[in-house]
């Protein structure tokens, strides 16, 4: 099993925090639409705690170690999903304009999940009312924890718009799955 510099669990805090300091949690209220990164609007369905960072925003109910809904609202050509490492070579996979959905799935998996799990059931999906894609990921962390993820997105105006729901397979993934599906249906370009 390969250990990646950006593996999900290894950098769970880096994902929600950044070089500029610790993230400031904010309450996402159930009844108000939320604007993500000035680019996407979603209906939260329930209350979440939000942690904003450069290029992405993470929502959680029980803590990011158990469940996390991560939005990447507008990844530009040549950018990675996560910020560059503070030190060492920058070997992040990058989003490139013109990438196929297969390559985007590979980019997501290589960036976020340990052990290079295979994207499953990559299929067409309408995201933010635009032709997009979705796929599933099933993996075991280096510590032996079984996790599941649901990934959906689209490339709109040459930018990758992405939503990733990842949670512990036991109890947590199913607990918020229906909520996440409703949020997914509510995504719009801002």
């Amino acid at each position, binding site marked *: 099993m390969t250990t990646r510099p950006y593996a999900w669990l290894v950098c769970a805090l880096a994902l929600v925090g950044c070089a500029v300091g610790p993230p400031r949690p904010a309450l996402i209220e159930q009844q108000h639409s939320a604007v993500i990164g000035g680019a996407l609007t979603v209906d939260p369905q329930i209350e979440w705690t939000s942690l904003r960072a450069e290029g992405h925003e993470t929502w959680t109910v029980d803590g990011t170690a158990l469940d996390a809904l991560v939005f990447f609202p507008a990844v530009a050509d040549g950018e990675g999903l996560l910020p560059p490492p503070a030190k060492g070579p920058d*070997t992040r*996979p990058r989003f490139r304009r013109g990438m196929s959905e297969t390559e985007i*799935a590979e980019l997501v998996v290589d960036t976020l999940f340990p052990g290079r799990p295979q994207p499953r059931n990559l299929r067409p999906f309408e995201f933010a009312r635009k032709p997009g894609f979705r796929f599933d990921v099933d993996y075991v962390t280096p510590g032996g924890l079984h996790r599941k993820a649901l990934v959906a997105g689209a490339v709109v105006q040459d930018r990758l718009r992405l939503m990733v729901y990842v949670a512990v397979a036991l109890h947590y993934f199913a607990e918020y799955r229906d909520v996440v599906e409703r949020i997914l249906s509510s995504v719009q370009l801002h």
Partner: protein
Amino acid sequence: MVRLQELARSVNARGGIGRRRAEYLAQIEPLLSVSLGDEVSRRDFPATDVLLRRLVATGARPGTAHFFQGELYRLRGLSEDGQRAIGAYRQALEFSDAPPQTLRNLGLLLVRSDDRAGARSALERYLELVPDAEDREMVKVRLGHIEEVAR
């Protein structure tokens, strides 16, 4: 250094590395694709390039070796790497051990380089070879786009 020289003498006394090479390759063969996939995904492209050139030079699993050379070029994404990847995938397909993903990745690159006939042929062959592919529906959408543009 002395210890390495001792080991080298010991190996040579037993007939050298080549004598058991086939046995060694047979042992690692089931793991080769997974290992090379992990290697390429590290994105340490100069080191992986050396490794793959050596593997190609041995002549062992040539379809697999050329496929991963194509993967390296595709992921590295330098200005000529798209064409290099297409060339490597085509070389891989000359050998029976090329993985089916060679056809898919070749087809997707050919879409980008506007070779619609080549792309359609490669993607259709991929779906024939892997009828239950995890990305079947997405590949069918790509084929649909090719048809639309051709009309």
